[in-house]
C-alpha cells in the first residue's frame, strides 16, 4: 500500500512537472524568439515606411539602454521556386551586419562550417562537416551574412537568404541536421544523375513584390531574380517556413521606398480653388499643358524603412526591462517626430512595441493554454490526494490494533495522528523526489521520445506547424521543480491528514480488541 501511494505521488508530480516544463518552455521560447529575429523593441510604420530612419537609429544608439538598432523593411511577396511552385512569403529587407547586431542572425544562418557534429549525428553525416563543390562553407556563411553572392565575373550581386523550410528542398534528419534534397536527372545515355537541390550553390528564386503608391494602390508588380546566399534556421517554424531576407537597398528599390527625387505635391489651396463647374476649353485658344517642373524644382525624397529594430543592453530577460526600453524609445521617437513634423508619423500614430506586446494575442493565448493545462493537471493531481487518502484510510483500518498498542504504551491521539501525517510526508518526499527524477528524465529526452513515438507508432503530438517550434522545449526550470516538489509533499500530507485524524480518534480499547 505505501508503494501504491508512492507511485501515485510519483506519477502526479512527474505529470505536472512535465506539462509545466514543456508548456512553460514553449512560452519562454515564444517570448525569447523575438530576440532571435526582431530584437527587443520594434518601431513600425507598416508598408508605407518612414523617412530619416538613419537619424532615428543614430539617436537611439546614443541611449544608454540601447545596444543596437537596425532598419528593416517588411512586406509580402511571391516567390517562384525552381520546381515550379509559387509561394507567398514575408519578405524582409535588411542590412546583414546591422541586422546581426539586433538579432541572432549570425547564429541562425544554417549553412556554415562546423567542427563538431550534432549530438545524435554519430556517423558525422551532417553535410556541413564535409566539403562542398566549388564553394566553401565559410564563403556561404559570409554570403549569408552580407546577403550577396559572387557571380561568374567575380562581382558581388545582391542575394536572398531563405528560411530553411521555405524552399521545401531541405529535410530534417532524425539526427537533427538538414540534408538538401536530391532529384534524378535523366541523362542522354539513359542513366540518371542525382542532383542535389542545394540552393546556396546555384539556386535562383524569382521574387515579386508589390510597391504601393501613397493611396495604397499597387503601382505595378516588380519581379527580380535572386541567387540564394544561405538559409537560416530560427527554430520558429512559421518564420523558417515563411520568411525570406533580401538586402535593404534592393527591397527599397523594388518597393519604391528608396531615396529619389520627387515632384512636389500640388498646392492644396490651389487645388481647392479649382473646384467648381467644369469649364470647357475654348476651341479658339491654343492648347495648354500642365506645368512640368524643372529638375531644380524636384525635391529630395529620402529612403524609407518600415521597421527600426532595437536591441537592449544586458540580458533583457524580464518584461519590465523590455518595457523600460520601449519607454525610452518612445521618448527618442517623440523628439525625432518633433524635428520632422509632417514628414514622419506623429509619435501618437507610430507603433512602438516590445516583442511580447506585438505578439500579445498569441503569447496571451499560450499563457492561457498553459494555465488551463496546469489547472486541469492539478485537478487530476487532486485525485492523487484522494487516492492517498483512500490508501491511508485502509492502512489505518489495517493497523487499528497497532494504533491500540501505541496508545497502550502511552502515545497520545495527536502523537498517533502526527505519525500518520509524517508517514504521508515521507511518502510525499520519496514520491515527489522520484517524480522529479522521472519528469527530468522525460523532459530532458522528450525530443528523442517524441521521434521514437512518431517512428514506431506514428504518433506526432508536437506538430511544428501548430507549435511554431521544430523542437519541444526540454528544460526543467529549478523554481518550477521546487514548486511541484513542495506541492507533491504537501498533497501527500493533506491526503494523510483525514486518516490521521481517524487514527487519533480511535478508542484505545476498541482498537486493541479490533479483529
Amino acid at each position: 500500500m505505501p508503494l501504491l501511494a508512492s507511485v501515485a505521488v510519483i506519477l502526479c508530480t512527474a505529470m505536472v512537472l512535465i506539462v509545466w516544463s514543456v508548456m512553460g518552455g514553449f512560452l519562454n521560447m515564444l517570448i525569447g524568439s523575438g530576440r532571435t529575429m526582431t530584437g527587443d523593441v520594434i518601431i513600425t510604420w507598416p508598408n508605407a515606411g518612414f523617412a530619416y530612419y538613419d537619424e532615428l537609429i543614430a539617436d537611439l544608439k546614443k541611449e544608454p539602454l540601447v545596444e543596437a538598432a537596425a532598419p528593416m523593411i517588411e512586406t509580402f511577396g511571391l516567390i517562384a521556386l525552381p520546381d515550379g511552385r509559387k509561394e507567398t512569403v514575408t519578405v524582409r529587407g535588411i542590412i546583414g551586419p546591422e541586422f546581426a547586431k539586433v538579432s541572432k542572425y549570425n547564429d541562425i544562418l544554417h549553412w556554415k562550417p562546423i567542427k563538431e557534429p550534432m549530438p545524435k549525428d554519430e556517423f558525422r553525416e551532417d553535410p556541413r562537416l564535409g566539403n562542398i563543390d566549388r564553394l566553401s562553407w565559410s564563403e556561404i556563411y559570409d554570403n549569408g551574412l552580407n546577403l550577396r553572392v559572387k557571380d561568374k565575373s567575380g562581382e558581388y550581386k545582391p542575394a536572398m537568404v531563405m528560411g530553411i523550410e521555405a524552399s521545401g528542398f531541405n529535410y530534417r534528419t532524425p539526427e537533427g541536421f538538414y540534408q538538401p534534397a536530391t532529384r534524378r536527372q535523366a541523362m542522354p545515355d539513359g542513366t540518371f544523375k542525382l542532383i542535389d537541390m542545394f540552393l546556396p550553390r546555384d539556386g535562383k528564386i524569382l521574387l515579386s513584390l508589390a510597391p504601393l503608391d501613397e493611396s495604397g494602390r499597387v503601382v505595378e508588380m516588380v519581379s527580380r531574380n535572386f541567387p540564394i546566399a544561405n538559409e537560416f534556421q530560427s527554430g520558429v517554424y512559421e518564420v523558417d517556413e515563411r520568411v525570406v531576407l533580401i538586402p535593404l537597398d534592393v527591397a527599397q528599390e523594388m518597393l519604391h521606398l528608396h531615396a529619389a527625387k520627387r515632384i512636389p505635391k500640388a498646392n492644396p489651396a490651389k487645388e481647392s480653388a479649382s473646384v467648381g463647374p467644369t469649364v470647357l476649353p475654348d476651341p479658339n485658344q491654343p492648347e495648354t499643358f500642365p506645368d512640368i517642373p524643372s529638375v531644380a524644382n524636384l525635391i529630395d525624397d529620402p529612403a524609407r524603412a518600415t521597421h527600426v529594430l532595437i536591441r537592449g543592453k544586458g540580458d533583457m530577460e524580464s518584461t519590465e526591462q523590455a518595457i523600460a526600453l520601449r519607454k525610452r524609445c518612445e521618448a527618442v521617437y517623440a523628439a525625432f517626430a518633433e524635428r520632422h513634423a509632417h514628414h514622419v508619423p506623429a509619435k501618437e500614430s507610430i507603433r512602438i512595441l516590445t516583442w511580447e506586446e506585438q505578439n500579445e494575442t498569441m503569447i496571451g493565448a499560450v499563457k492561457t493554454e498553459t494555465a488551463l493545462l496546469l489547472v486541469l493537471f492539478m485537478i487530476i493531481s487532486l485525485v492523487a490526494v484522494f487516492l492517498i487518502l483512500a490508501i491511508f484510510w485502509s492502512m489505518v483500518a489495517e493497523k487499528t490494533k497497532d494504533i491500540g498498542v501505541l496508545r497502550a504504551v502511552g502515545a497520545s491521539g495527536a502523537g498517533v495522528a502526527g505519525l500518520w501525517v509524517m508517514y504521508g510526508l515521507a511518502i510525499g518526499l520519496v514520491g515527489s523526489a522520484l517524480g522529479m527524477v522521472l519528469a527530468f528524465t522525460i523532459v530532458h529526452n522528450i525530443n528523442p521520445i517524441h521521434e521514437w513515438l512518431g517512428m514506431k507508432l506514428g504518433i506526432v503530438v508536437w506538430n511544428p506547424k501548430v507549435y511554431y517550434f521544430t523542437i519541444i522545449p526540454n528544460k526543467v526550470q529549478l523554481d518550477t521543480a521546487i514548486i511541484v516538489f513542495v506541492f507533491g509533499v504537501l498533497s501527500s500530507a493533506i491526503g494523510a491528514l483525514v486518516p490521521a485524524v481517524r487514527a487519533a480518534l480511535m478508542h484505545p480499547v476498541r482498537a486493541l480488541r479490533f479483529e
Partner: protein
Amino acid sequence: MSTAVANPSSSTPPAARAGASNAMSKPGADVALIVSNVYKTYRLGRVDVPVLRGVDLTVRQSEFVAILGASGSGKSTLLHLIGGLDRPDKPKAKSAPPTPKPNIAYQGRDITGMSARTLDRYRAQDAGFVFQFYHLLPELSVLQNVVIAGMVRWGWAYSARASQCKKQAAELLDHVGLSHRLRHKPTELSGGERQRVAIARALINQPSLLLADEPTGNLDRATGDTILDMILKIRRERNLTMLVVTHDEQTAARADRVVRLTDGKVASS
C-alpha cells in the same frame, strides 16, 4: 470497599501473606491503588451492556493481585480502566439512588480525573501492559518493538536518548533470554518468545505498575509457567505492583491475593 485478603492457595510465603494482610488492614501509606464505585457500560447497538457494576478494590504497593473471573465478567475492562486506557462511567445524577462518584487512584493520583495528556503520560511512565495476544508491531524487529515504547515516552526528546534507550531495550531482552533474537521479526518467534518481547516492552519505561491481561492465556502450560515465573521474578526484582487478569486458577494461585469478579462486581477477594 472490598477488603484484601491473602489468597490461601497463593505460593507467597505465609509470612509475606500475613504481612500483606496486615498492610491491607491499614490502608494508607503503602496503598498503591484504590478503585471505588467504578461502573462501566458498553453500548452494543441499541442495547446498553453493563460490564462493571460498582467495583471496589484496593491494592498495596508491590502486591501481586490476580483478578479471576469468567469470560465477560469485566476483568479486562477493569484492567483497562486501571491502566488509563478507558474511563469509567460518569455518575448518573438522575438515577435513584444517585450513583456515587467513581474513583481510581494510583499512588494518590486520581486517574479518572486526569486530562488526556496526563493520562497518556501515566500510561507511558507508570503503567506497563502485557496482553494475551502480545500485540507486537509486525513490521518492527524485536528490538524496535521494545524501543518504540521508549520513543513514545520521550517523544521529540527521544533522539537525545536513542542510544541509551536501545541499550536498555537490549539489556531487557537479554534479561528475558532473547539477546539472540534482537533483529528478528515477531513472526519469526514462538508464542512464548513474543510474550517475552511484550514483557520487555512493558518494562522499558520502568513502570511501577504492571498490568497483565491473560499473559499466559495463549500459551501452553509449560511455556505459560515459564512466562509467569519470569514475570514474578521481574516483579520481585523491580518491586512492581502487579495486577494479572486470568481465568486460570493455577495462575491465580500464585498471586498474593485473588480478586474474583462476578457480574461486574468483586465477589470475593
